């Protein structure tokens, strides 16, 4: 499927990441947005509110983020593509409904324009400190997909990808922006509608009676239906069997949960989105994501000028974590350097996958600004000395 022509603002624009993410959502076919204002994400919903009346979408400003994060799921079951948008405090309020989307396999998109925390923190300043919350914030075991743009162009492109992945895997997809990327203005090229690939919802062709809500084949992703088509469906956040009926047994729990997790983890390689730069033959590899992936560039350049063999991996999809890839790479390099705008989150994943084969060094930052490139440079220079 290709994007809807009248929804796509084809052309070159000079807009910020928040606005670009809004355009990405619209191009992806999003027709329902519920949100609650919070800096630095508000511009996304403001632009949605401006644009939606002319592209057949409905925006509603809800009473809070709890309401927003469940209203979108109602809209999805009515047949729409839907998203909500927030930042730290609002993201915390949405956690229960990320779990609800995971267990009910409701395809939807959450944008989190990260700011510094905890609590109200630094409302107008950047951080990348919700990365673990994105993965683990709701209770229980589950998997999500989290993608991390580093430019307004990517806010556009990757928001489309988020909607596509949500439909393909029936999973909540989290677009983990940060204040810098959200508020940075750059050129964004929006292609012709017929150049934009859209994944449509896979509605079942089975008639009511034959269809089972959570029956799957090898794809591990059940086909969907929508309300009002005569299926008389039942959806619950309780552990459920293939019919979607509650079933309070460890056996059903094991089967359901295993599939919810496997449909993502066993497809990790397909979902994987990484950019590599001079990784082959590298001694030290910098692993970065989001705004930090731009801040590392001068540091890497300088270290290379010093004669060090430095590679760079940029994670555009952080969850599911590219575990197999890092495990494999760890055997071929000496060290990983992981700068993040937090006091250590994704570095734990890298260290776990490195499993002692490569030294792993965090370059922390408490947030509120980006790293000084020199701190990253020093970490690259020092990582093998103090190993």
């Amino acid at each position, binding site marked *: 499927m290709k994007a809807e022509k009248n929804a796509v603002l084809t052309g070159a624009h000079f807009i910020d990441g928040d606005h670009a993410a809004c355009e990405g959502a619209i191009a992806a076919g999003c027709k329902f947005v*519920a949100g609650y204002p919070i800096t630095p994400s508000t511009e996304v919903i403001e632009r949605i509110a401006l644009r939606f009346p002319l592209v057949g979408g409905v925006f509603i400003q809800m009473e*809070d983020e709890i309401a927003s994060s469940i209203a979108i799921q109602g809209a999805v079951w009515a047949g729409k593509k839907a998203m909500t948008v927030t930042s730290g405090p609002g993201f915390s309020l949405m956690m229960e409904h990320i779990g609800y989307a995971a267990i009910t396999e409701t395809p939807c998109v959450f944008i989190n324009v990260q700011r510094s925390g905890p609590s109200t923190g630094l409302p107008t300043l950047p951080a990348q400190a919700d990365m673990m919350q994105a993965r683990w914030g709701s209770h229980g075991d589950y998997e999500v997909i989290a993608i991390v743009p580093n430019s307004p162009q990517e806010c556009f492109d990757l928001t489309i990808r988020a909607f596509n992945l949500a439909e393909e895997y029936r999973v909540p997809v989290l677009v983990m922006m940060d204040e810098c990327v959200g508020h940075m203005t750059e050129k964004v090229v929006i292609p012709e509608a017929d150049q934009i690939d859209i994944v449509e919802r896979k509605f079942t062709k089975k008639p009511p009676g034959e269809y089972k809500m959570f029956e799957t084949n090898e794809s591990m992703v059940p086909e969907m239906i929508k309300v009002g088509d005569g299926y008389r469906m039942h959806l619950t956040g309780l552990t459920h069997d293939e019919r979607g009926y509650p079933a309070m047994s460890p056996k059903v729990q094991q089967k359901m949960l295993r599939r919810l997790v496997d449909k993502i983890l066993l497809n990790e390689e397909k979902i994987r989105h990484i950019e590599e730069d001079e990784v082959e033959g590298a001694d030290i590899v910098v692993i970065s994501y989001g705004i930090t992936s731009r801040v590392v560039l001068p540091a890497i350049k300088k270290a290379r000028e010093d004669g060090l063999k430095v590679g760079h991996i940029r994670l555009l999809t952080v969850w599911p974590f590219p575990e197999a890839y890092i495990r494999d790479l760890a055997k071929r390099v000496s060290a990983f350097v992981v700068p993040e705008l937090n006091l250590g989150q994704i570095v734990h994943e890298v260290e776990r996958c490195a499993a002692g084969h490569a030294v792993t060094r965090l370059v922390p930052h408490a947030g509120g600004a980006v790293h000084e490139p020199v701190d990253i440079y020093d970490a690259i220079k020092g990582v093998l000395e103090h190993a």
Partner: protein
Amino acid sequence: MHEQQTATAEVPEVKNPVESLLRMDRMPHIWCPGCGIGTTVNCFARALEQSKVDLDKTAIVSGIGCTGRVAGYLNLDSFHTTHGRAIPFATGLKLANPDLKIVVYSGDGDLFAIGGNHFIHAARRNVDMTVICVNNLIYGMTGGQVAPTTPVTAKGTTYPYGSYDPPFNLPFLADSSGAVYVARWTVYHVHHVTKAIKEAILHRGFSFVEIISPCPTLYSRRNRLGDGLDQMKFYQENSEIRHGANTKDVDIDFQKKIIVGKFVERERKTYRQLMNEHLTSVFGEQYTKYEG
């Protein structure tokens, strides 16, 4: 059902007249003997039949609690959501497909404690949906803690010496938040309940029906009020029908008179009507009316 109890309900032998509206493959249900929730479901099913709405275009949304289980027993598109969030889920459903009839069916704690904020906002917006609250004056599912509806002096496990936490007057709350239809009945008044639900479903806008219902297992027993039947007798003897009563005057005191009736019936434009009219006035032909 209290979480620690096992189901004891018997499978009925005579064919239930509302069977086609129930998911018989999920029977027996989990509710305790003497619980009022089943009675309300019976009334609801009859009201749906009488209202002649298209059942394939009717969705029911529940939160969490004993009453929250209602959605799962009805043979409709049905949603068992999260605690307190049935109304915002239903708001998304309705706005995304305006052709649907939406009924939210949940407990007093679910709708008015954790979900209270959503209730007043949906009423304020006049989102077209019917909210049915089974008010048993207690948290049933979690074992008899007080709710924001528990009358002062009644006992719950978290107020073991009797509650001093002032309760809500639900019809007044609904009325002042903007609901266009507000009624209260008890499970003793099965015909009135059925009629009220039917009227509420057919009345465009945010309608609210409160049904006072016994929780013999947790509320009545702890407060020495007898079993489900004793509660029915109490409702029979102590209810006073007062249609059009000022909702300010209908609060519930412990074991005192219960004012029942249809309190509010009025017209207001729904959220979607307002949206479509306003955006059409701004954009004219350019505006794609949000019809579904």
